């Protein structure tokens, strides 16, 4: 005979104010199988939990029902209390009479009746539970970090410092990401490259970190603790084992006019190139599409001049397979393609309308103008500079609805630099709002205003070229007047968008993106570093627009999460997952496509039937990947699938309890 104990929580007055908890407990005592029933002010408190333990001892209970808040709040607490009382923790059911009853109803009588019904259902369900055991899966003690910008480097270094090996995969020929392109960082005006390149070197030299640059993750199989990753090392055409990085090849390469993406298109590079002098690894690769030897079988100068014979024109892509236990995504951002959207700013046809990132290169001592702010069209120093904020941000018609968070501050920094570097300059910033949430940010902005930068609240409606001037027309919404500025240079603070290809890699790794293509965190407030796929964590701007301090913090946070996974030899898995009844499964495979976690595959089984051994295919659940969502159970047409802890039998018992 099963003996159920029912515990009804008042949650102070949260529940008791609307539900007559005492009556619920009294009614519950009459339900079949209930041996004990009581109400209590705070079931989650220590005395409340002790109550369960004492009741089990005194009344020889073997199943527990708690009627209180949402299971998302305290289910683990009560499961543990059940276990401490000597009962299998899965012989427990929780029903929610707070969010589902007291918080949403006002009629005490009806609310109490509803609470009684919910408890009746929970009792019916718990009578059909069976003991379940946690299982464990082994953990591969290695992490993969995808993306080698500041987020990825920070994550890799922290995981490596924790003593676990890390594989860092970067698509570009160098790690570093966008940060080394920047000139100064706000609000401290530290030299960006000076604080970033040492981090790049540390990452390179760390004994626990293996870096694959010019590489992409092509395939990810498996699940938390046991991912199998295939990396495509793209052909570099230079043997980095032999190359000393002397740079002779770069000086001799005849193809010198290729726009350098590191210079944001403001400078050129050769076909055999390092993105910048402090690149890591500090060795060149050949850009095959622009190499005369590789495209036309002419030239070959680099091979002739290379003192070590490192040039390999016959280099091929290579596939590398590694096992990892956790993955950190750090794929970063790109700038919103404003030239496709903003016709009023000229669709990119005016050379002196540039982006903030281009301005960073202009003002950078190692940039194409050696740090002199010179405009692209004629190389003259601009005197009147207009900055326009929110280009692509906060514009749901032409761009993105969200705020890109960093632009207010980097524009303040740019304006400060312009005033600082150019004598008699006139700097105007058009803004919608100035948002300076961050340590030392507001002070920096105020200083920029004191520098003499003119902030005009309003949007710019049009830019056009007249002679050597850019006519910028907008509105000063504080004065309610039209404004016109004859500018020499216009800098657009373009929105941050997810980096190109980030959607594809999310698909490969197997997690979801949000409406704007940023990676979807598991909970916007309380699980910002995790994805819905166990063992895959997020760092930096791939999750949403972020500045450098936030990115570095999130890199460390994701590293802590990944390190926690790697700190165990094996990990426990929740037994509340799907199971297959092989005898009933027809092997149709509907569940395989439905599973959002790629946890189901078809396996072949052999069985004896009619005196013969036959082989057939049935669904098979991967216990590491299954999250117990139950989608497959609902989809299964032969009823072969069932969700442990929420079996069809249990659900039907609940329905019967309510309806019969």
């Amino acid at each position: 005979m099963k003996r159920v104990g029912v515990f009804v929580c008042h949650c102070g007055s949260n529940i008791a104010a609307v539900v007559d908890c005492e009556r619920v407990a009294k009614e519950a005592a009459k339900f079949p199988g209930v041996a004990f029933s009581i109400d209590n002010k705070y079931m989650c408190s220590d005395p409340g939990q002790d109550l369960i333990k004492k009741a089990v001892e005194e009344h020889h209970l073997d199943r527990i029902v708690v009627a209180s808040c949402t299971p998302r709040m305290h289910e683990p607490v009560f499961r543990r209390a059940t276990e401490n009382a000597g009962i299998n923790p899965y012989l427990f059911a929780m029903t929610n009479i707070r969010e589902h009853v007291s918080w949403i109803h006002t009629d005490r009588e009806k609310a109490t009746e509803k609470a009684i019904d919910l408890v009746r259902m929970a009792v019916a369900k718990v009578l059909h539970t069976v003991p379940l055991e946690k299982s464990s899966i082994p953990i591969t003690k290695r992490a993969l970090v995808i993306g080698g910008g500041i987020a990825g480097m920070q994550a890799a270094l922290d995981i490596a410092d924790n003593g676990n090996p890390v594989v860092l995969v970067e698509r570009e020929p160098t790690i570093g990401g966008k940060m080394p392109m920047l000139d100064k960082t706000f609000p401290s005006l530290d030299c960006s490259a000076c604080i970033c390149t040492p981090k790049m070197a540390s990452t390179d030299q760390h004994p626990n970190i293996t870096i694959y640059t010019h590489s992409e993750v092509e395939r990810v199989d498996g699940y938390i603790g046991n991912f199998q990753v295939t990396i495509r090392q793209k052909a570099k055409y230079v043997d980095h084992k032999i190359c000393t990085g002397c740079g002779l090849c770069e000086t001799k390469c005849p193809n010198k006019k290729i726009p350098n993406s590191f210079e944001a298109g403001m400078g050129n590079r050769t076909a055999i190139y390092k993105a910048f002098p402090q690149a890591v690894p500090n060795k060149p690769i050949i850009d095959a599409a622009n190499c005369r030897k590789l495209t036309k079988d002419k030239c070959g100068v680099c091979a002739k001049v290379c003192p070590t014979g490192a040039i390999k024109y016959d280099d091929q892509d290579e596939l590398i397979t590694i096992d990892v236990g956790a993955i950190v995504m750090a794929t970063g951002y790109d700038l919103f393609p404003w030239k496709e959207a903003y016709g009023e700013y000229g669709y990119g046809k005016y050379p002196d309308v540039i982006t903030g990132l281009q301005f960073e290169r202009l003002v950078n001592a190692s940039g194409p103008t050696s740090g002199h702010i010179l405009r692209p069209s004629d190389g003259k120093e601009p005197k009147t500079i207009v900055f326009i904020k929110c280009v692509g941000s906060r514009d749901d018609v032409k761009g993105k609805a969200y705020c890109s968070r960093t632009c207010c501050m980097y524009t303040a920094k740019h304006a400060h630099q312009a005033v600082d570097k150019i004598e008699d300059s006139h700097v105007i910033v058009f803004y919608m709002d100035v948002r300076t949430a961050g340590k030392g940010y507001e002070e920096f902005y105020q200083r920029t205003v004191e520098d003499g930068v003119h902030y005009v609240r309003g949007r710019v409606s049009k830019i056009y070229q007249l002679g050597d001037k850019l006519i910028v027309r907008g509105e000063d919404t504080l004065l309610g007047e039209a404004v016109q500025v004859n500018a020499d240079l216009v800098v657009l603070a373009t929105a941050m968008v997810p980096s190109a290809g980030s959607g594809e890699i999310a698909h490969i790794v197997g997690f979801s993106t949000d409406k704007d293509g940023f990676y979807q965190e598991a909970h916007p407030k309380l699980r910002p570093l995790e994805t819905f796929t166990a063992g895959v964590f997020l760092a930096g701007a791939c999750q949403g627009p972020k500045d450098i301090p936030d990115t570095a913090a999130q890199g460390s946070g994701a590293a802590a999460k990944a390190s926690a996974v790697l700190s165990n030899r094996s990990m426990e898995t929740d037994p509340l997952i799907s199971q297959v009844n092989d005898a009933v499964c027809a092997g149709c495979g509907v569940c395989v496509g439905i599973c959002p976690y790629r946890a189901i595959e078809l396996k072949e089984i052999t069985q004896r039937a009619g005196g013969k051994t036959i082989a057939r295919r049935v669904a098979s659940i991967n216990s590491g990947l299954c999250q117990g969502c139950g989608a497959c159970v609902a989809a299964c047409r032969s009823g072969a699938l069932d969700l442990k802890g929420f079996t069809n039998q249990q659900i039907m018992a609940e329905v019967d309890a309510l309806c019969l």
Partner: protein
Amino acid sequence: MKYAYYPGCSLDSTGIEYQLSTKAVAGTLGVELWEIPEWNCCGASAAHNTDRLLSLALPARNLALAEKEGLDVAVPCAACYSRMKATEKAVRGSEDVREKISEIIEMEYGASNRTLALLDVFTNQAGLEQVASLATKPLQGLKTACYYGCLMVKPPRLAEFDDPEDPQTMDRLMDALGAEAVSWPYKTECCGAGFASSRTDIVLQMSYEVLRLAKTAGAEAVVTACPLCMLNLDMRQKEIEAKNGVAIDLPILYFTELMALAFGHKPAAIGFNKHFVDTTPVVRKVEQGRRAKEVQP
């Protein structure tokens, strides 16, 4: 090709040359224009500043008459086009609006037909290749500033046939006719429109900017598709010149006039003599260019 034709109130009066040239071009292109019988005013700015339903019902009556014939509607005037397009969208977007409008005009109107700008009909719908092949007297490098004004391609949710910030339809048309479309920034700026009567000073300033930038870009003529732009730029040009103490002398022409001219129609027959600013330099320039070309084959 047959279209319902809605001339609107200007084309019989101040915009007569638009009407004359439109009919000439339609004839050459083989486009049949069926003038909507008993058509009424589109409501213009007055209606939609008064009452939304009124502003939808007035164009709807004209559109319903065309719908009954199963015809798309070709609209020369930019303002009429905008009002009719707004009506079409509102009726398509809401069953409630559709019912109300049909009740008011005492006719069924379901917006199954399309409202098209005449500019769109004569270029994209007719095909620029055909237009080019019919341009027997090409315009020989005439430098034109294509002026779309405020309503032909804006707002983008109504006018959908071209880019709202940097439209190209008229520019490509000029190319097909053998003329040159200069690059200039004021293609879609406003001339001041209906403020001409209430705040003439504003209109003179705004229209002056349009003319000044067209001139600066090297244009020998401004091409428009709007009778009100024509009025402000052409009729008021003398006043603008006097007010600013400058000589502008920039002929303003409808795109249909230049089409008809290139198609070989006589300038007087298509309204070249109906302008305030002398248009003969345009005709002369085109003829000179052609003669020069004939001399050196």
